[in-house]
């Protein structure tokens, strides 16, 4: 199959995985609500019990997202993970402390005490979405790096990529306010989704009532942050592209990218409407199904936004210090052979999704 189609196919799969990941951050959102919704011991027990049955799906999706990025676009994995060292490390730490907490929190002799594991869950719920959102925003707003493979021929001091400055990724916070705005948007979205999930998954009327209030308040913050980000991204923030090897830093807007691939525009619209409808159902009606509308809406919205970040040679990771080092899906992908092999593997993904769906339908049956 044509190399360019495979590169787009993998960019699409990563965008889809990214969408699923953001949806599944409802686990983190729920964790950030444990002090709010779980004041009573019994409520806390129910909350942790419910979230504790799903956390591994989010965790696994994150790991698979990282590994799939490595396999399909190794240049990004190489440059970003080593350069933005501290951002990725903080993300990893926040997930390490989560991974043990659900298992350990209720166990006797758990060494650190129940309160510590509760704090761990809260910290993961707070830091995970904010840091992931901030990091993902750099796909649009860039970072300060350069690379040159020729430096691997320096036999004494071989290098490959170079990251400007001494903050190793933390500078994403102040390079542009928009990185943090997306971080905040993802955080409040995760809380909104977390509350919607709780409404759907828990039987307690008490918790449901409080959760509905949380849907409303968090959705307001989410919408303010997200719409600010979205308007800036689609209409004000210039797209970068390579034209015959020369970087063009004024190649239209991301809205042009949406128009160029109309299905992305449709997906985005349906997605945003889905999220809004889900919020409405959760906050203002007695419905239990808000999570499905908002969840699927989230997947579609993120899918479409991530896809236009890299479609058709758009720079998806811009170098602010050396623009010619910027990454597109064409200059950063695995070889034609590897992408082909991986694409064959990817045909099994629907099967994986099917058994997950089947199993959880069985498990969530009341």
């Amino acid at each position, binding site marked *: 199959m044509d190399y360019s189609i495979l590169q787009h196919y993998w960019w699409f799969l990563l965008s889809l995985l990214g969408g699923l990941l953001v949806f599944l951050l409802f686990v983190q959102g729920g964790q950030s609500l444990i002090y709010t919704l779980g004041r009573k011991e019994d409520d806390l*027990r129910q909350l*942790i*019990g419910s979230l504790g049955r799903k956390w*591994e*799906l989010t965790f*696994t999706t994150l790991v*698979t997202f*990282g*590994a*799939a990025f*490595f*396999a*399909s676009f*190794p*240049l990004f*994995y*190489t*440059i970003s*993970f*080593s350069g933005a*060292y501290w951002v*990725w490390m903080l993300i*990893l*730490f926040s*997930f390490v*402390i989560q*991974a*043990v907490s659900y298992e*350990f929190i*209720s*166990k*006797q*002799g*758990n*060494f*650190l005490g129940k309160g510590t594991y509760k704090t761990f869950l809260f910290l993961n719920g707070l830091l995970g979405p904010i840091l992931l959102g901030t990091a993902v925003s750099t796909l649009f707003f860039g970072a300060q790096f350069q690379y040159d*493979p*020729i430096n691997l*021929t320096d*036999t004494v001091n*071989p*290098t*490959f*990529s170079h*990251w400007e400055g*001494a903050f*190793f990724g933390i500078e994403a916070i102040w390079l542009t306010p928009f990185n943090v705005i997306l971080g905040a948007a993802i955080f409040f979205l995760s809380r909104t989704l977390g509350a919607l999930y709780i409404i759907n998954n828990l039987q307690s009327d008490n918790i449901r009532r409080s959760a509905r209030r949380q849907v409303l308040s968090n959705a307001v913050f989410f919408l303010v942050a997200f719409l600010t980000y979205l308007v800036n991204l689609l209409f004000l923030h210039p797209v970068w592209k390579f034209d015959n090897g020369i970087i063009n830093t004024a190649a239209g807007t991301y809205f042009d990218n949406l128009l160029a691939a109309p299905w992305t525009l449709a997906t985005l619209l349906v997605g945003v409407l889905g999220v809004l409808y889900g919020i409405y159902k959760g906050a203002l009606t007695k419905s239990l199904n808000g999570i499905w509308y908002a969840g699927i809406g989230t997947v579609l919205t993120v899918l479409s936004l991530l896809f236009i970040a890299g479609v058709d040679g758009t720079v998806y990771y811009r170098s602010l210090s050396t623009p010619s080092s910027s990454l597109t899906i064409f200059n950063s992908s*695995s*070889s034609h052979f*590897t992408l082909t*092999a*991986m694409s064959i*593997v990817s045909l099994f*993904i629907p099967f*994986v999704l099917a*058994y997950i769906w089947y*199993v*959880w339908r*069985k*498990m969530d049956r009341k």
Partner: protein
Amino acid sequence: MEQSVIDWSRAQFALTAMYHWLFVPLTLGLGFIMAIMETLYLKTKNAKWKKTAKFWMKIFGINFAVGVATGIILEFEFGTNWSKYSWFVGDIFGAPLAIEGIFAFFMEATFIAVMFFGWNKVSKGFHLASTWLTVGGATLSAVWILVANAWMQHPVGMGEFNVDLVRTELNDFWAVISPVAIMKFFHTVISSWMLGAAVVIGIASWYMLKNREKTFALDSIKIASVVGVTGIVISIITGDITGNQVAKTQPMKLAAMEGLYDGANGVGLVGIGILNHDKTYNDGKDPYLFDISVPKMLSFLATRDINGYVPGINDIIKGGYTTQEGNIAVPVEEKIARGKEASEQLRLYKTATNEEDKETAKAFFKANSKYFGYSFFNSAADTIPPVSLVFYSFRIMVCLGLLFLILFVVVIYYIGKNKFTAARWLQKTCLWAIPFAYIASQAGWIVAEVGRQPWAIQDILPVQAAVTNINASSVILTFFIFLLLFTTLLIAEIKIILKAIQTGPVESVEDEQY
């Protein structure tokens, strides 16, 4: 390249990998044992097997959580700390990791939830299937990460070096699942059964010593000892085949495992030995202060001929001997010179402005490209791994493996003769043997990984050319954060497991589960 960055990055990877490997072999071994127990429950309909399986599942769950926590770091550490590696071989190395995620992790994550929370929600048959799929998922994830590791030991399946991008590229997916990878999988996973068995037998022996839960304990020991013996016997066979493969693919590692400096025909295998620590490459001193060897055994292991030739460290460096494939070994100094030539030609290719110069440089590069990785060395002696660590680790692994075989056989014998309950000395031995199973398992990985040094990928990329160029202080800081965090988690896990053991098997696991 700053040496401290290389050292700390290696230390951090070793720390995180070794911590991860404290938990994974128990997942693999105990998982297999408890799945057998649940199968017996369905077959016999005897509730005692449900109780037994559930107790071990509880231990499995506690251990699994820390395994997951320590595993996520490894998945990303190739990028954060070994970024040049990620670029140089990412086209090949990334695929197994992604496949591991897609196939194995979701399988584990989905079915482990059924295993723990589904007792009353799904049928018995579906639950049993979920238990096996959880263990299968864990084992499947081991397949892919071990394929990736085997590729670092024996890189295959590559096409022509991509001179434009300066990286190796995949051209044969199935070649990556090489005989080396297959042996590595069986040796690593099945030796984990030994560890799982040792833990089950040890804990069950504690109950015997305390006169508690005797039926449960004896049932557990019966299953585990058979799994343990099976595991060790298969590990001995796969270990032997692996040794033979190492002789062909990584002769330097084999020489380090044996402390063999001067090769010969009909070489003996050092059974017990103490190395002479003053010994350096090519100084003519005796490598051992003391040794007892099995005559001709190493030659047989390496070549399947008791008089076969096994090269030592000096021979590998000097070259000139005939390899098992029938080639004349190239001296390391020559490899370094040709590697530097390849590197220079690659640089010329990348900087050339006209097509003719490019083509010439490319042709010269291709002639020497297989030694490109050697360009990063200045002296042949730099290609020798730390001999004593590899030598002693190998002996610890083999000796402990054999001792466990004897222990498990004795346990089976005593159980068969109905004497186990009275044999308190044997129960105590089993209990105190638990940590040694971990030592054996870790020692095996030290042989595999330290024996490969100074290469990150054998003959392709040394560690100094693989590491991320970052300031040492960042790596030192993350090293200590990991050390503190993982040690805390380890203490917590041990305390929780001890408490669970004290409580003993109960009818319902959900009692404590949120």
